[in-house]
């Protein structure tokens, strides 16, 4: 799990162009959207593609993203549960 969390942080920094951030700057349990990292609905769509491209998991309804992408940890848990 911790390995996956670390990997996700690197991937997120890359796809969302968080140029000035290091993986260590992102708290695994803090909210990614709103008050936390400050991501928005477009970032959520970028993360949906990341899941599909890198982990083979397809999300059909963007509304499901809200729960899955709450934090890095919830994302990692979702991937672990759904990866074939």
């Amino acid at each position, binding site marked *: 799990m911790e390995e996956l969390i670390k990997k996700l942080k690197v991937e997120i920094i890359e796809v969302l162009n968080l140029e000035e951030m290091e993986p260590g700057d992102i708290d695994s349990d803090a909210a990614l959207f709103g008050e936390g990292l400050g991501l*928005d*609905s*477009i970032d959520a*769509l970028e993360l*949906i*593609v990341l899941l599909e491209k890198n982990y083979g998991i397809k999300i059909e309804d*963007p509304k499901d993203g809200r729960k899955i992408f709450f934090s890095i940890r919830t994302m990692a848990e979702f991937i672990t549960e759904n990866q074939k």
Partner: protein
Amino acid sequence: MGRVVVTGMGIITAIGNNVAENFDSLISCKHGVGPISYLETSHKGEIPAAEIKLSNAELAARSGITEPDFYTRTTLFGLIAAQQAFDSGISRYDIKDNKRTALVSSTTVGGMDKTEKYYHDYLESDRYSRFVQTHNCSDSSMKICDHLGLRHTNITISTACSSSLNAIMFGARLIRHGLADRVIAGGTDALSKFTLNGFNTLMILDHEHCRPMDAGRKGLNLGEGAAYIVLESAEEASKHNKEILCELSGYANANDAYHQTASSPDGFGPYLAMKGALDMSGLKADQISYINAHGTGTDNNDLTEGLAIDKIFAPNIPPVSSTKPYTGHTLAAAGVVETIFSILAIKHQLLFPNLNFRQRIEEHNFEPIKNLQEAEINHVVTNSFGFGGNDSSLVLSKY
């Protein structure tokens, strides 16, 4: 300020190649959404769209063009619709001096259909370089001017999905400032892989026939088309004894200033656009007989547009419909396509239905028009809202 009226119109959409055909489809509830057959895309069979059922060669032949390769599909639509508008509002009245006739056109992706075909070639050699400039948004405007013999003011606007309402507005202002006697105003957009995939990444394309203003809506269907209207001052029109189709009695442009794609939660930009257009017309909200909504079928647009309508018109919300289930979302052309539908509503005193409606959106205090119906229609509001928060509305009145 002088009164500006509409004296001509031309249109090509998935439901017809001219005004009469579009009207026939509207009253017989015949829509144009179906499997993609003309656009070359790997999404064929998976995502439906409202295509115009003519190949580029067939479109070119309709405009008497012998070298169709040099014309983008966007331009070919534009030529057909602008020519119809020109014929119905200008040449029919034997007006030959077009020195003071302006073109105000609009498009969102210009000649993207050629660019996506030749892009890698462009980068490698000069083999297809002759098409490079067909990418520009002004390519269609310039070719329309060539076709109609216009050589003065020639404008191209691009404000995403609200583009052609802004073209109409700009045209009206040219007339009011005495900078033109007549303006052909509208827009054109062909379906492209670029827009189809773009909207697909936003996950706002319905994989079935779209359901605007419905609780179960799943997104929009893209369409393609072009439409133009002829604008002039009421004095100029009566000087030539013209048939006046309607008056453009109000218009406004506002910006939602909230997010690049999402509308603000209460639809503040749409509210400002409708309110501004109403204020200019001097009409009260309860004098509006029909609202042709932007109504794309996306979760966000329909919810917020409805809230803005509610804020202005409640408790007497006039009949509302989105005609996008007929034509699909024709992007830059949408505003002028729906302006023409609004003019037809006034002319025939008919309200066009919002196809596929089943269940009211919970937050809305109204249901859209379910069936074709006769009504007294004096004033119509039509809306177009776009990416970048560009929101525009018109008020059209019976003359």
